[in-house]
């Protein structure tokens, strides 16, 4: 057991899902060929001026509400000055003393235990561009497409003491932002990014140790790993009687180690001052109320609805809500076929199986929740057998289409063919005298054997109910 305990705080950057950039009308979409989504304003040409996107302001206020923050009635923007080739104005428009959101809190659950993480502030700023380096030719290219995409920076208090807590929090923030419609939270595309401030101190100490800041954490896995190796590194330093230096460190995922980027001594002096181009904003209570009321249903409310109104198990509801795509799919499905339990079972069973096996992904599903609901309904009402349902689902995943069309085309409907049923079951009973004996002597378990045989042979030509009744009747003769 270590004699140290770690303390961490997070800075999370999330790109907002506005259509246009934060200070001009260029598209804020991800990607695009280099420098195809920029204009004189976001590429910082002389004479241009920023005009604040009101939608971005609305989104950060929503972010504030979903994280239980105080929303400032008066907010303003500042310039953060530093030179870098991906920053065409050589200053980032950000917020220093008067951010939109202050002092919030977010509940997380870590290994069954509830914990509150305090939010220090959330502010609105602009993203910078991207540099692409061609090492072979010793050239660097600047792509300004990302310049001016609205970002919120969420700064927490140093409330984390384990990587699990950090991961749980980041997952929670991702859900909150996705459900509020503020950010798509695609870590792999950088639409949400996380820096970790981390220090260790001897157990029982009331003072925090010297912290380092970890950057370049592109996945939850990277965050967990980086925290682990950085704690180890700091422990080793202290054990060897050395000091931790306050610095920014970059995590190298391949090598699984953190390396120093810059220390406090050469940290930038950003020379913040109020941006004279953007007038401060004063919000009225009515404006804030209207924005608050426009926030869609949040994850916790959805879980509540599923458990209390639909009677789903808490654990099932948690899984469904844990992925917004699945959750929206579920809501669409039960809107079509109001049998939440059956729909949830089939999503968590069959559909999740396929997803986990990599055969399907929610991102590129070729059918919607309503199509899926129809399939479940056909199975629940004995129009399609479970076995044929699986075949149809596979077809829908691979090629799309509706359950009805596929069943029509491939002749997969239950036909209630009583003659065929009698013929098949009679044959099974005749060919299996031993299990028949067992059943008659009171061994009910073998009933499943007869059902399985009959299902296999009938290929959905009769409903399970009809098969069951007929077998029972024959066996008791």
């Amino acid at each position, binding site marked *: 057991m270590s004699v140290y305990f770690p303390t961490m705080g997070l800075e999370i950057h999330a790109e907002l899902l506005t259509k246009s950039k934060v200070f001009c009308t260029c598209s804020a979409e991800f990607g695009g060929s280099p420098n195809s989504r920029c204009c*004189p304003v976001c*590429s*910082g*040409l*002389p*004479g*241009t*001026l*920023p*005009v*604040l996107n009101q939608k971005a302001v609305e989104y950060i206020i929503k972010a504030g509400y979903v994280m239980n923050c105080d929303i400032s009635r008066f907010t303003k923007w500042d*310039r953060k*000055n530093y*030179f*870098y*080739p991906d920053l*065409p*104005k*050589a*200053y980032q428009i950000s917020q220093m003393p008067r951010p939109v959101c202050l002092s919030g809190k977010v509940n997380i659950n870590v290994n069954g235990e509830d914990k509150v993480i305090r939010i220090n502030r959330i502010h609105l700023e602009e993203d910078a561009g991207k540099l692409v380096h061609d090492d072979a030719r010793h050239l660097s290219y*600047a792509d300004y497409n990302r310049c001016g995409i609205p970002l919120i920076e969420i700064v927490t208090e140093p409330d984390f003491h384990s990587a699990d807590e950090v991961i749980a929090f980041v997952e929670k923030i991702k859900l909150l932002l996705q459900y509020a419609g503020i950010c798509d939270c695609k870590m792999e595309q950088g639409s949400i990014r996380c820096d970790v401030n981390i220090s260790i101190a001897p157990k029982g100490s009331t003072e925090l140790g010297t912290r380092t800041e970890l950057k370049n954490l592109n996945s939850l896995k990277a965050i967990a790993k980086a925290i682990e190796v950085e704690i180890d590194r700091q422990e080793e330093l202290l054990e060897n009687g050395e000091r931790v230096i306050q610095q920014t460190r970059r995590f190298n995922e391949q090598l699984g180690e953190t390396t120093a980027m810059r220390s406090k001594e050469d940290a930038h*002096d950003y*020379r*913040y*001052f109020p941006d*004279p*181009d*953007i*007038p401060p904003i004063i919000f009225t209570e009515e404006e804030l109320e209207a924005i608050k009321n426009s926030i869609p249903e949040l994850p916790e409310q959805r879980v509540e609805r599923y458990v209390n109104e639909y009677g789903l198990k808490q654990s099932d509801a948690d899984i469904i809500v844990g992925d917004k795509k699945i959750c929206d799919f579920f809501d669409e499905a039960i809107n079509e076929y109001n049998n939440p339990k059956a729909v949830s079972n089939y999503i968590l069973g069959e559909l999740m199986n396929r997803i986990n096996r990599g055969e399907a992904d929610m991102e590129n599903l070729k059918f919607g929740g309503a199509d899926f609901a129809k399939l479940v309904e056909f199975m629940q009402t004995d129009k399609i057998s479970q076995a044929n349902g699986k075949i149809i689902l596979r077809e829908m995943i691979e090629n799309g289409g509706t359950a009805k069309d596929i069943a029509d085309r491939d002749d997969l409907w239950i036909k209630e063919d009583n003659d065929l049923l009698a013929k098949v079951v009679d044959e099974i009973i005749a060919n299996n005298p031993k299990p028949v004996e067992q059943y008659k002597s009171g061994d009910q378990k073998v009933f499943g054997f007869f059902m399985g045989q009959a299902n296999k042979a009938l290929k959905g030509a009769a409903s399970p109910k009809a098969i069951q009744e007929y077998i029972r009747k024959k066996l008791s003769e």
Partner: protein
Amino acid sequence: MDIKKAKIRDLRKALDNKEISAPELCGEYFKKIDEKDGEVLSYITVTKDKALKDAENAQKLIDAGKATALTGIPLAIKDNICIDGVKTTCASKMLENFIPPYNATVIEKLNAEGYVLLGKTSMDEFAMGGSTQTSAFAKTRNPYDLERVPGGSSGGSAAAVAASLAPAALGSDTGGSIRQPSSFCGVTGIKPTYGRVSRYGLVAFASSLDQIGPICNDARDCAVMLNAICGHDRHDATSARVDTPDFTEKLGQPINGLKIALPKEFYAEGIDDTVKKCVLDAAHELEKQGATLVDCSMPSLKYAIPAYYLIACAEAASNLSRFDGIKYGYRGEGRTFEELIRDSRSKGFGEEVKRRILLGNYALSSGYYDAYYKKALALKQEIIRQYDKIFEQADVILTPTAPTPAYKIGEQDNDPVKMYQADICTVTVNIAKLPGISTTCGYTADKGLPIGMSIIGKRFDEQTILQVADAWENGFVPLDAKL
């Protein structure tokens, strides 16, 4: 047609009456530019080809009876206002070859009127200075005495109008850059209320102080120009959502009953006696026309220069950071980003610009912010408060525009503090976001150099200061420039 000292309204009449065509008219100005600008050096770029095309289009509008106030009127534009496809240098080596891909909003508005661009006028580099001698390309001379400065930073625009190389021009004013050169060159220039004219496309010096305005032969022409360029702009969040009146409306109305305040600090030590006397004589002339003179005080004036230079330089340091040699403009040498940017900025900027960038960054540095920048903001609030107080008892304020008439080229080169002090009469107007107009009130007896006075108005009350300036000009006989 004789274009000497021609007013916009005279040219309008001549164009509408077909006494001259628009192409012929701009041709007259180009002829004069060819003759005289070798001595005055007011233009950095002359746009003959573009002008001829623009003039032909304007003529079509005139022939179709669709002319508005500025259709076919040739104008000069200060070289820090972006024009699509026309070199915009800010008189700096840094932007020697910069061609903007977009128009400033004022240019869009002038285009809508069908104006004709004569060229881009010289200025102090990035509008930093009061002499136009920091220009990297054309160190403009005063048409009244070629050995003297035209003032600045809009010295090219003022000299061009004074020498009849343009009937009117646009300038920009951050701490007096329209009014002071207007006063040195014996023309009339107005800095509108902050927010009255869109700054979109004006290469920023100090964003909270910059304002575009016209420099013309008289207040009446200034009013015509203002009518064309004012109004809210969705590209500039600091442009005001106020109605644009007809600025010619109050011209010619009598000024009796108007209260004119004379803050004593503007007539104190540091102001040339000749200038003081000339402005006060004008005040008494206005009194004769029925105005009432009101004594008042602005105790904070003594802090105005440090407050102004701290705010202006802080903003400038940030605004000029984008010139790094990466995207456009002068590119130095270097293997790394750090080396490249250092070389580009060291060689691309002139001394005065570098001085102000250093001063601004110093004032914003951690540890100094509270001592300098924050104090400057507090002084700004105090200056605003004192103006508000004066305007409780007066309609306009009358001051000298500059402490001296035009001085000799080179005279102030080695003393930046003295040079900064020369802005004492104009900077508070920018700090308080007020409108101010400078018009000629007399000439020095010995050398015939123009002396200017400034009329300062309440926010968004350009109409009254235009009215007062016009009332003065109607009884005043200007002396022509020697050139």
